[in-house]
């Protein structure tokens, strides 16, 4: 009987292990596909250019805005303790509205709901700065999103979107980042496509950018139609990607090619 229980336990453990798209021991952050120069730039606590945005975000954190003249700090006090680990759990379902939110969406919802302020525009310096500042507080913590409850249908949609062939090249995300990671695409090594460094400073952009911007770049790369910013399909994908990267430490602000 005990042996049977043990066997059942092992089967359950194996099933849990299969709950991953990529086995934990094979999981590689985008930074492992970089050259030494960019990796050391990311790890440099002074020269990492993304830190310019993090610093700006730190200032914005305690700047009052909107009708209520409140700042993020009015409710959340010191981000260094209150925001620790928060980014690791996003995208997440907002309990009040039932909406799936990424960190950017959460910041803008907070502005609308608590501060009576205009939402920041996608890819605006302010939104990138605050997002980077909040995510930075979780640096080194493993990604750990929930796909239970109301998040489950969004996760399933994200998984479907991830495997959907699209564009003139008729490729899905999985064709590069699942089946061919580690191989060369022209001068670049294909990564596993994890979102653990966002917002990232990309050399190609010469600036900080969000995960949505990166997804759009991928869509353009496979000659597919880019969805507008804020499309629910991006959020579904972001949730699926975050789940797929579970266990990877957060690197924000990452530096990428």
């Amino acid at each position, binding site marked *: 009987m005990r042996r049977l229980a043990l066997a059942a336990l092992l089967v359950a453990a194996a099933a849990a292990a299969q709950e991953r798209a990529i086995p934990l021991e094979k999981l590689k952050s985008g930074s492992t596909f970089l050259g030494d120069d960019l990796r050391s730039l990311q790890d440099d606590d*002074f*020269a990492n*250019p993304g*830190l*310019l945005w993090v*610093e*700006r975000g730190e200032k914005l954190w305690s700047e009052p805005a909107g009708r209520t003249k409140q700042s993020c700090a009015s409710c959340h006090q010191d981000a260094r303790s209150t925001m620790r680990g928060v980014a690791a759990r996003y995208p997440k379902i907002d309990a009040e509205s039932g909406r799936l939110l990424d960190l950017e969406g959460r910041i803008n919802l907070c502005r609308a709901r608590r501060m009576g302020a205009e939402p920041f525009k996608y890819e605006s310096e302010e939104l990138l700065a605050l997002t980077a500042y909040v995510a930075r507080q979780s640096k080194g913590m493993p990604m750990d999103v929930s796909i239970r409850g109301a998040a489950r249908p969004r996760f399933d949609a994200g998984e479907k979107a991830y495997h959907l062939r699209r564009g003139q090249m008729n490729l899905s995300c999985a064709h590069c980042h699942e089946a061919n990671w580690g191989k060369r695409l022209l001068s670049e090594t294909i990564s596993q496509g994890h979102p653990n460094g966002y917002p990232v400073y990309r*050399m190609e952009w*010469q*600036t900080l950018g969000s995960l949505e911007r990166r997804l759009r770049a991928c869509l353009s790369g496979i000659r597919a139609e880019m969805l507008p910013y804020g499309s629910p399909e991006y959020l579904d994908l972001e949730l699926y990607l975050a789940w797929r990267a579970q266990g990877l430490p957060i690197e924000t602000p990452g530096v990428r090619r």
Partner: protein
Amino acid sequence: MAARVQVPAKAKKGEIVEVRILIQHPMETGYRLDDVGHPIKRNVITLLSCRYNGVEVFRADLSSGIAANPYIQFYTVADRSGEIEFTWIDDEGKPGSERQSIEVAA
């Protein structure tokens, strides 16, 4: 435009110290076209100067081809306690400055 300057907070007199600066700037090359094909006007930091207690210890003439958000590092000799101050100006005539103090023990 934001900038970060790093110098050691404390140094011994005569010690060689590393000075680093990172400036947020688009460094628009002047060679790019916008979405409708019009050239985008060049806007780069043209002059960057560093003074140590008022004495210029480093100067750089920057131009197109230097990446956005330029990062520069150099070495200088710790002489006296005081301030290391950077000033710069870009094509649009917009100035910037950032300083950091250093304490030098004899």
